[in-house]
Every structure is written in structure tokens, then in C-alpha cells.
């Protein structure tokens, strides 16, 4: 039997057919089918305007942001096998990731990927602004995008604490220190002075937004745990949901932007 024969035979098995519902995408019908029939590729339209595939126009920054998000999810999941968010172990675990855990660049990929994601998402926004792609009918999706950008920064910010080194806690101390100044909700913010009756202090370092964020009055073990959960579970979940909304709206608001 020739090779061709084998390939053909394989393609005619029930297993193959159950997975791939169509022939090779070398004709229009199958090209449509490959996109429409695949849950992941289904994010794309079956066909689109030519300008949408021109890198000079799209810069591909949104796509890269999404890809880096996926890469960070995968590397982050792997890192979680070795990392314990406690003051006792966090630092040592990071050292372990560098010193003896196989594939010693996992943490580097995760960290640099996080920086790269911040940059790509900024430039994605820059491009969308420059092509005026926030204009009707895409106003809402622009808003979703802005929130996603903020969440990207928060993801990066919460991850910054996890190595539990001097860089981490002091960056977070500086960053979270600003929450202290939130008007009416932070103990050093305008209006906090007013929220007291006698010795009943309604806004103090024990009950303001900063305390809520850190789970304590300063960056300590509770803060590490909270940031870990925000970083690994809470914000990624929200981001995942919003990304779905974002992509859905790209499709529904007329596909990737192009001149009207």
C-alpha cells in the first residue's frame, strides 16, 4: 500500500471523521467549515476585509496581548505547583524556581511576559485610538477595553508582591500607600478626620480600604495571601469574562475595525 493510501485510509476512519468534520481547507467550503466548526477558531469571522489582515494597519497588538495572557496563565499555573504564599516560604520558593526547579526560566517567562503584556495592551489602545476605532458602534467595547487595561495593570501589580523580596514589599507598600489617601475611605485621605465620634474612629488604619486590600495595617503575610488570590484567581477570572465580552463585541460591532 502506498503512503497516500495510508493517509487516505486514516482520513476515512470513524475516529478521524468524528474529529474533523470537513476535508482539507483547500476550497471555499472547507475554509469556511474549518473556522465555523472549531470552537476556538470560531472567534474569527469566516471571512474578513483585507485591511483586517494587514499588520501595518492592525499592529496585531490585541491578539498578542491575548496570547501573552494565555501564556501567562499556563506558566502561572505551573509556577503555582512550587510556590507557597506564606512569609516563611514564598521567598525560598522563588529561589527554588531559579535554582533547582526544572525549566529554570519559567518564572522569567512569566515575569517578562507580564511586562510585555502591559506594553502590548498600551500599544493596542494607542492603535485603536489612532485609527478612531472607538467611534460608534464600538464605544462600549472601548470601555471594556479600558477596564481590561486597568485589570492588566492590577494583575501585574498583584503579582509584583509574590516573590516577597525587598523589591516586592516596598513597591507594594508605595503602591498600596496611595489607597490610604482615598477620600473618605482611606485613613489619611480627605474627609477621614470627619468620620469619627468621640473615640469611635470610623476610618482608621484598621478598617479603611488599604486594610481591606492588605488584610492588615502594613504589607504582611495576609497581604501576601490576598495578593496571591487576587493574582491567581480573582482578577484572571474577571479578565477572562471580560475578554470573552470584548471578543464577542468585536464580532458583533462589525468585526475588526476598518473604514466605514
Amino acid at each position: 500500500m502506498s503512503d497516500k493510501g495510508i493517509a487516505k485510509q486514516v482520513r476515512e476512519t470513524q475516529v478521524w471523521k468524528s474529529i474533523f468534520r470537513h476535508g482539507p481547507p483547500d476550497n471555499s467550503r472547507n475554509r469556511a467549515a474549518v473556522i465555523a466548526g472549531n470552537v476556538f477558531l470560531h472567534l474569527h469571522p469566516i471571512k474578513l476585509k483585507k485591511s483586517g489582515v494587514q499588520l501595518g494597519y492592525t499592529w496585531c497588538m490585541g491578539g498578542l496581548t491575548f496570547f501573552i495572557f494565555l501564556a501567562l496563565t499556563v506558566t502561572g499555573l505551573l509556577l503555582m505547583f512550587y510556590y507557597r504564599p506564606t512569609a516563611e516560604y514564598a521567598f525560598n520558593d522563588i529561589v527554588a524556581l531559579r535554582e533547582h526547579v526544572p525549566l529554570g526560566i519559567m518564572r522569567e517567562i512569566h515575569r517578562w511576559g507580564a511586562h510585555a503584556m502591559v506594553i502590548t495592551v498600551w500599544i493596542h489602545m494607542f492603535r485603536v485610538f489612532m485609527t478612531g476605532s472607538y467611534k460608534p458602534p464600538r464605544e462600549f467595547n472601548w470601555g471594556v477595553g479600558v477596564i481590561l487595561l486597568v485589570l492588566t495593570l492590577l494583575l501585574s501589580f498583584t503579582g509584583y508582591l509574590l516573590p516577597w523580596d525587598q523589591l516586592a514589599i516596598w513597591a507594594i507598600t508605595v503602591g498600596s500607600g496611595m489607597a490610604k489617601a482615598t477620600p473618605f475611605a482611606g485613613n489619611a485621605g480627605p474627609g477621614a478626620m470627619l468620620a469619627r465620634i468621640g473615640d469611635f474612629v470610623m476610618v482608621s488604619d484598621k478598617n479603611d480600604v488599604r486594610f481591606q486590600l492588605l488584610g492588615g495595617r502594613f504589607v504582611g503575610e495576609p497581604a501576601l495571601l490576598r495578593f496571591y488570590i487576587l493574582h491567581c484567581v480573582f482578577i484572571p477570572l474577571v479578565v477572562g469574562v471580560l475578554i470573552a465580552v470584548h471578543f464577542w463585541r468585536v464580532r458583533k460591532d462589525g468585526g475588526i475595525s476598518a473604514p466605514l
Partner: protein
Amino acid sequence: MSESKEPGMAFQMTKLHKVMAVLSFIFFVTTVWVFLDDYIRPWKAIQVEAQQIKRRHTEEAIKAAKKEIDSKKLAELQANLGKGKDIVASRKKEISKTEDELKAVLTKIKAQTIKNGTSNGDVSAINFQYETAQKEHNAKEAEKKLAELLKLKAEFSQGKDNLKAYQAEEKIIRAKLADLNKEVTDNEKAIKEITTKLNLLELAKKQTDMSLIFAIRNMPFLDYLDPTIKIQQIVINNVTDDRYFRQVPKVDRCITCHTFIDQPGYEKEKQPFRTHPKLDLMVGMESSHPMKTTGCTSCHGGEGQRVNDFASVAHMPDGEKQEKEWIQKYGWKEPHHVASPMLKLSQTEAGCVKCHSGVELIKGATVLNEGRMAIEKYGCYGCHKMGEWAENRRKPGPSLLKIAGKVDKEWFKSWVWEPRSFNKHSRMPAFFRQSNNSKPEFIRYNMAEVNAIAEYVYDKSKPYVPNEKFHAGNAENGKKIISQVGCLGCHGVDGLEDQSNKVKAYAGPWLTGLGSKVQPDWLVSWLKKPSHYQEDTIMPSMRLSDQEANDIATYLLSMRNKTFEALTFSPLDTKARDELLADYNSTFDTYESAVKKVAKMSDREKTLDLGKRSIGKYGCYSCHNLEGFDGYEGIGPNLTKEGSKPITQFGYGLQHDVAQTRDAWITAHLQRPSRWDEGIDKVFKDLNKMPNFYMSEAEAKKITVAILGQVADVVPMEGIKKHDAGAALYNQGMKVAGKYNCMGCHQIDGLRGDILKMYADDINQGPPRLVNEGHRVQTKWMYHFFGNVQPIRPWLQIRMPSFNLSLEEKNKLIAGFQQGAHQGTFEEPEMEVVWEPGEKEGAAKLWSAYNCVSCHSIGFTKDTPLAPNLHLASGRLRPSWIRKWLTNPQAILPGTVMPSFFGEDGTTPTEPGVFGGDAKKQINALTKYVIELGKNEKK
């Protein structure tokens, strides 16, 4: 087809809304329920009650404070204040003028501060630039900068001077202003001074108000802001909870309910509001176990983290009455899943052991100490390991290495079979005739074992020939000597029951029926020189004369036990012996071949073999020195961590009446160990071998406390009060003191002194109490004294014995005393006496004025001495101790006959004529005088 149909409705909208309304209502109710469930906690009610109690106390304090205030004076001051206000008001114009002046100066100061701040910044910046230029060897630039810098500096220092001038001005104006307001401020201050305490109390009372603010602060949801009712906790990093392979810091939240535990004044409140009963020792800030660093469950046990449920804390009721009460009141349940529940109130002292593990006796832990004394009495540690405290102790029983020279074999067998039939006070426990081994076939085997043991022991026994001959003496006199010289510190004696029962001595056996037991010659030699028979005995020599020894022996030998003498022990049942041996040998072999193997042995071999095996089986060697058992471990289970042993590991047999708690099991076990076998069909070799000590319930309970303290908890070094080298030495010394039963006679730093109970009428007739002995006597003297005892107090009838101390023991004992008194070994050995002018004459005057020789008569008059020989003082006592003693003897030894010449405070001499009545000078002079006495004597 063209009429495409609109989709229809499956339900009616009204119906859907109704369902929605019902479900939402249920949903809403559950939400409210969640809130309430989360909010209502029992400890909150307790804290509210505590607040009311505090309010009551504060109100009482306010009443008291009000009484304290001189109301007349207050009224006067208030009147003055009114007047003062008028005066000040009349100066209104002047005051406002001065205030304006002040404002002007303050403005100047502020402006100058700004200017100076700028200058300061500039100076620092230019200085840095100048230094950088210098560093870079940029001479031109540096010169330029320097010129600029100098100019700026001059400006700055001018500015600083200006500021100082303004500030001086400000001060003057302020003083003036204060002067103008003087009449008001002075009176206000005076009033405030009087009323400070009251004001503070009023403030405290206000804090206990049940106001709206209080309600808001503690409202559901809002109670995260700044609640007054909240969980209180102590985190102790230095004491840990065992989380198996991890030690985690202890967290105690007991103070959430026990609100006033560390505050004096609440002693009479009901629980949980009561103050800790021993605040000076525990919990109090100044005590040696402050709450913040010791916590609660470190000592008491229990689940310190729990606050929501009385039972989950593992509170333990003490007694059935309390248990019933708690079940009714709090729904108390037996805490089955708690590894270490709270210690019952009467057993609390067990908690001390965890940290104070190696300490011989722990001050303040009465029950625990009694428990340990009972352990010492029965020698539990012979068979059981029991932690650091029980390590390296002597064997509890007498040596059997020369037993053949002491008692005869027949006596031995009957004694082993049932010790109490000879001596009802016997501490040798009963192995036989117990509830689990009284079946005829078991008795047959047991008797064979006893026979074999006796054969083995006597076979190995070395010969002994007494070195004294007994000649009859005066029994009455012997009895008197026994009661006088101090035998009762260690022995109970028949015929002296009254005294013996008072002292409750336990180091030596209760002396009874000796005439039926030992040879007269043996007894006399033993009394005169115990170490002749047993080298390592703790029995000391009392330095008895020949006559005294014979008198005592006569008395002791006059006691006979006729019934016991009449006993004869049935001869060895060889069949039973062979069966037992075959049984032993069949462990790794079939019974038949074991029988064959035994048959091959000679008769003697068989007997000795069974004897050795039986001694090993019952662990006789644990308490007695026996040949052939070197290196054998005690046969009992290790009790070092008994207090942490899971309750499931205790075997209860069929004893359902015994409660399912550690302490109940241990107490029951101690009283009748054979009970666990009762009603169970066991083969002979599997019977419980723990013998019966016939101890009372009270004793068993005390021992239980000591054993409960043996827990597995690891206390980090930082958690224990640092056992420095000194404390360790003290413990070692006290261990030696314990071994030789020093405290049977001497009370050491307030502990024991058993025999003193005989001298309740006149404590000064008893052995001297040792308080800070390491400070009192010189190291050299003590060393010499132990090796060569000589009487210090000739009027005492009780004698300090000559102990058979090894060099090592002597050193340990001395070092222990030194460290107990925080005294360096070579500190203050002897003092050179250097008189100041006129001092010696004064001393002589005092010597006669205080009439020292009336008691310290030795070497001065022929009177019967009532106090120690002062000629020995210089070589024996430390000068600083003499001074302390002279200052206030009652403070050291309450009840001493030594008069207090210097009053209770030690500063008012009864002889004010010498040294102008300066007590210190007098004491110094007398000390020197006494020391010189000794020195002259030596010369």
C-alpha cells in the same frame, strides 16, 4: 407555511411573578438568618456583662474617690477661681494687647522659618555641589561654589540668630501672658490636681455607657469599623502548639470571656469574670509568668483558640457536681477529639512540668510536689521512665547483693509473697494474691516463681560478716534515742506512731518486727556503719556510740512478728517449675521440643533459670541491686509523655466505671492495677504485672497530677525561663539533696522539712531551716562540714548525720546551694577586719549592751548555750550574711530566738547611745567584732 407562528408562552406571567415573589422571600429570610447566625455569639453576651460589672466597680471607685476629695478645699478653690476670673477679666485690655504682640512675633518667626528653610536647603545643595567639585578636582568650580557657600552660610547663620532672637521674644511674651492669666490658671491647675483621679474614673465610667454609639459600633455589618466587643487574643511565639511535624505559635483567646483575669479587684466575681487567684505568680504583669508571654493554655491546656462554644474549649469539670452543673448550664460534653483538654482545677499544677521539667521540687506547686514525693516513696521511676526529673535516681529498694547475710531465705520468700503480712507499712508492692492471679493454677505457678527467685537471689548473694557484736542494751533508752536523734526524718517506727505519722517519712522503711527479720549483729553494724553492708546506701551514720547503737538495736529487736515467723513457704513445686520453663522455652519452638530441652537440664539449673527469668519478668532488678541484671531497662512502659497519650491507647478491660479520661485511668490504675484483667480470660504469662502498692486514693491522685504533667509538647528554649548555668546547677544540687533526703529534716528555702512537724511547739529545737544557705555559709566551710560533721548547735538533740556522699555529690550539693542563693563560689570567703577609729570600742560596748554571751555562751561562760558558738562564725559565715542576719533575723527565719536589735525595719537600734544610733554602723561594728573573735581563736 407563510403564516409563521410567533412563539407562545408556556407559563402565565402572573404565575411566574408569584413564584419569584415566594422564592425571593425565602431567599431574603435566609439572608437575614445568615446575618443573625454570624452575629449572635455567646462571648458577646459575656463581654456585655463584663462591661456592666466593670461599670459597677468603677462606680464604687468613684464613690471612694469622691470621699477622698476634700470638698471644703475644692469649694475654696472654685471660689478662688471665680475671683481670679474677675481679676483676669479686668486686665482684658492688657491681655489682648499682649496677644497681639504674640501674634506679631509668631508671624515673624514663621517668616523667618521659611527663610531659614530655604537657606538651609540652599546651603546643603551648594555644599553637595562644592563637595562634588572637590571630588572631581575641579578647582575653579570648587572655588566658585565655596564663595557662594560661604555667603549662604553666613546668611543662614544670621537667619538662625534672628530666629533665636524672635523665639526669646516669644518666650518673654508668653511668660507675660501667663502671668496675666495666673489667677485663673493656677486655680484651675489646683482643682485639676485634686480631681484627676475622679475625672479619669468618670471617663472610664463613660466608656462603659450603653449608648447609641455603643450600639452602632457593635452593630451587625458595621462591627468591622471599631467594635468594642471583640475577640481578644494573645499570640505567644515562644510556646507552640503541636500540629504534627510543625510547631505553630500558640494563640489563646481565653481573655475574650475571662475579661478580668489579669486585673486585680475582681476576685469575688463569678466565673468567667474572676481575677486569677495567684496574680503575683501567674498572669500578672509583674509576675514571673506574665499573661502576654505565657498565655493561658500553656499551663492549663485546652483549646485556646476556641471562643464560640464552652465545650469546644475543652473546659474540664472537677468533680461530678461541677460536671452536672456544666452540662445543664453550658451543654458541656466530654471533649473526645481534643488532644490535650484543660487540666482539671485540682490538677492544674501538672502544667508546670512542661517547662520546669528537671526541677526537683517546684515552689508553689504543692500537689505536684506531693505527687513527686509519693513517686519517690513508691519508686515508680524504678520501672518507668518519667522524664528528666526521674533520671539518674537511686534504686528505690535495698541492695540484695549480700542479702544472705541479712535475712534468711524462708523470711525472704514469705516477704516476697506478701510483704504486708510482715509490715503493714511496706512500700514493697504486692505482686501476688491479686485479683488477676488468685486462681489456684496461677497461685501454684506464682509460688514456684517465688521459690525460684529466692534460690537465684541467695545463690548469687555474696557472704557478709557483720563487724559489730550485739550486746543487749536498754530498749527504753533506744526508743528515746530513736525519737531524738532524727531517725524519724526517714523512718517510721512502731511504738512511735504518733511522731511517725506526723512526719510521714518515706526515705527509709517503717521499722517493725525487726526481731523476726534480721540478725542482732547485723543490725548493730548497720546502725553504726551502714556503708559496711551496702557501699552506696543513703542511710547515714548517726555517729552513734556503742551503747547507743546497742540500745537502739535492743529496742528494734524487741519488736517481733509472731504470725509471720510462723509462716512456712511450701517447697518448690518442680512440676510447676518445669511447666513454666517449658512455656518460656516454647516461645520459638514447639512445646514438645521445649519440654525435651528442659528435661535435659539439671534440677539446680532449672531452678536458677526460672529464678532469673522470674526476676526479669517482675522487674525486681529495677528496684534492687541484683547480680546478673546489669544494663537491664525498667520493665514498665515509658511514662515520659504519658500526659499526651491518646485516651484510645489506654486499656480499659471491662472496667466501665472508670471515666474515659487520662487522669481517671491513671488514678484507678495506681490503686488497683490488676483491675484491667478482671473478668477477662488471660493466660498466665499475659497477666498484668504491675504490682499493687495499696496506695490511698489521695496519694494516687497526687501521683496522677505528676504523671499528667509529663506531656509531649515541645517548648522552644526561648519559651522557658532561661535555665542558665546557675539554675541547672541548683537543680542538680537539689537532686542530691533529694537523694539523701536532706529535706526529711531540713526545710530548704521553704520546701519540706518533714521532721519539723514534730517540733511544732518549738521550732528552734528542730533541725535548722536553711534559707539562702549558699549565702549564709562559706563554700569552704560547707565542704569541710559535709566530710566532717561537727555540731554547731550543741543544745539540739537531733543530729546532723554523716552522709556517705561521693566527692561529686558533695560538689553538686554545694554548687547547688551557692547557685540557689545566687552566690559565687569564691565570693566573700573571709574578711580582713580593719577597724575605724573608735569603732572597736563601740563594738565592745554593743557586745555587752546586747548581751550576746547570754545565749552565745560557748567559750565565754559556763551557761548552757542557746545559740551557736560565735568563735566559729568567722570561718563559717559570710560577713554580708551576718549583717543581714543582725539587721532582721525574723525576716530570714521567722520564729528564731535571735532578738531583733534594730527594729522591724532594721534601722532603729535598741541601743541608741552607740555611734549616734546609726544602725548600719552598729551592725558593721558587731560583724567585725564577731569575725575577729574567730580569728583570735585561731591564733
